């Protein structure tokens, strides 16, 4: 894992020395991946082992729209950082805002899903093993989205005050790495929770 990360970073900056920001973020991503791996293992290990209902098939609906929102936010994030690298301020701010809005939509979707489960279906983290693993895995991911949104909003506010300049593109790209990671994790969580586990 660390070997590939080094290679990726090395290819990106062939002639100049490695960027510490990127290496640091790769390390964080490796550590976070290990945390998610443990939660994913727990989810798979306990699939179908709940002693009583509800089962995933009874209450889960596939969150198609919010998933599309989150995944497309990776593209807008990519365009935003690309625009900043070329110094196109307006384009950067527009795409950054769209990314923020798409991420927020995803989080609102999760909140509505949980609200329905808790208040209508009476399904909580202590209901059964499915509840335990579902809320912890999806919640862990959602908390990462929330942290990402806080970081994105900070940059957005700074950008609106004109503090984010072209020379800051490297820092924004490091933040973008985190955002892409959160998206990639959702692909895994989505596949397991709403695909295999249902």
């Amino acid at each position, binding site marked *: *894992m*660390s070997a590939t990360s*080094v290679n990726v970073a090395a290819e990106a900056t062939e002639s100049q*020395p*490695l*960027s*510490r920001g990127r*290496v*640091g973020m790769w*390390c*964080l991503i*490796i*550590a*976070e*991946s*290990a*945390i*998610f*791996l*443990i*939660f994913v293992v*727990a989810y798979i*290990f*306990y699939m179908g*082992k*709940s*002693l009583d209902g509800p089962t995933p098939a009874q209450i889960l609906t596939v969150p198609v729209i919010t998933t599309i929102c989150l995944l497309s936010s990776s593209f807008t994030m990519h365009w935003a950082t690309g625009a900043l690298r070329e110094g196109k301020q307006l384009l950067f701010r527009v795409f950054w805002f769209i990314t923020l809005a798409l991420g927020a939509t995803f989080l609102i979707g999760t909140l509505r899903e949980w609200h329905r489960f808790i208040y209508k279906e009476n399904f909580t*983290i*202590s209901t*059964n*093993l499915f*509840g*335990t*693993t579902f*809320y*912890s895995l999806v919640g*862990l991911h959602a908390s990462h989205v929330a942290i990402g949104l806080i970081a994105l909003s900070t940059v957005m506010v700074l950008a609106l005050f004109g503090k984010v300049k072209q020379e800051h593109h490297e820092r924004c790209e490091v933040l973008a790495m985190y955002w892409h990671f959160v998206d990639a994790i959702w692909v895994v969580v989505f596949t397991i929770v709403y695909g295999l586990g249902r």
Partner: protein
Amino acid sequence: MATDSITLPSPRAESRSVVLDWLCTVDHKKIGIMYIVYALIFLVIMGCEAILMRIQLARPELHFMTAAAFNRLFTMHGTTGIFFVAMPILIGFGNYLVPLMIGARDMAFPRLNAFSFWMTAFGGIFLYASFFAGGSLLQGGGAPAVGWFAYAPLTSPAFSPGHGTDFWILSLLVAGVGSIGAAVNFVATILCMRCPGMTLGKMPLLAWMNLVTAGMILVAISPLTAAQLMLMADRFLGSHFFDPAAGGQPVLWMHFFWIFGHPEVYILVIPAFAFISEILPVFSRKAIFGYPAMVAATTGIGFVSLGVWAHHMFAVGMPSYGNAFFVLTTMVVAVPTGIKIFNWLATLWGGKIRFATPMLFCLAFLFQFLIGGLTGIMLATAPFDWQLTNSYFVVAHFHYIIVGGILFGIFGAFYYWFPKMTGRMLSEKLGKWHFWIMVIGFHLTFDFMHVPGLLGMPRRIYTYQAGRGWGVWNMITSIGVIFQVAAILIFVYNMVHSYFKGAVAGNDPWDAWTLEWATTSPPPDYNFSTVPTVRSRRPLWDIKHPEDPDWKYE
């Protein structure tokens, strides 16, 4: 700075500013020293806990303390030793030495560095706050009593009422964040901050081994963090990860814990390997033997150690192919470890050996680590392990590694680098007293501790009946502690005395070859006035011997 009238600060304001300076520092050397001092304080605390336990176990059917107090003491002793002594002291030495050795002026992220230290520091203080969180202090207060690996379902609210376990969970979570932050910093520093000419192949082995350790922290501490989050959800939110009543399986905790727990052993021992790999060559007056093989073996240990965790669980009833797999992977670790031992021996071979105190500790490390490794291979054999699981044989084995290996390596590092950190030499005479009394105490305690294990004495019992044949061995074990305490007292006295009165060290008291000895002792804030350029693995040798530099041969 230039003012017309100079007002001298009052002594009180000056001491306040010194304290503030240390509290707010982002300098890797100061943070490193804070890690080390912090760990030494906890070393004394965990030592006191060990003394109390050894008094209780010295004779059969003693009632020096209650069973509840004993449970709290061994939990705190183990948790403190791993997370608040060994981890911080090794990260501290790495913090101090890695930037100096790679010719950098600081770590890659100085503020993250300070953050990581304070997280670790708060974790330890928080853990010890549990003593004051309920119950009589003579009974161990409200401290956790679940053992350092805290098996489920003992940690469930039904079996662990009160908040001791919660203190344990939260303090390890916080300290874990600190460790991960430190690891991120090490990787970024070593990959991005090396001085001109220092390719990965010319980097000192200490930096290499810290790189591998940091990589392992990233992938091994995170599972612990995840498992602690689950346990916290179980205790606070009513989830059922490890709750058998709702279909949860306690064995899952065992797996998650040991996925962290076994690599952790190597996270602790590889930095000790790093000290040995730097000190042995200097006192043998030879370059390290087999540098590339050492790097490859370290990396190999790093990878293999991620796949051996269930050898802690042979007695749990895994399928036979599971047992076979983990026996095999555990045996495989012996191969790269053996390569290292042979390389160290080959470094000594034909060398002009100087028996200074750092060298003595390193030589003792070689023997003791080897014996600890051999009992490890015994325990890695599943049928043998079934006989001795949870016995004092296991306790003796891992203390052989942690005290006889890691702690001896750390002592060697102290005698070797103390002059660099303070500008003063530690007394050689006191150092030799420290060494020999420690050796005697260590062997009295931990050699003889194997025997009651073989005779069937389980770990974690607070007393035992007379007539089991365990009494003599426990008495010898406890007597050894007296020697160890004496050795530590000499060590502490030596450090304090030498800090004020020791011989002035100069830049390079050991005639060594790595970059930290190229600057003053202690180094200035910026480490190097001009960033050095490196052409070989022993840059200082090249400077001292321009007629015969290493780079002609490498």
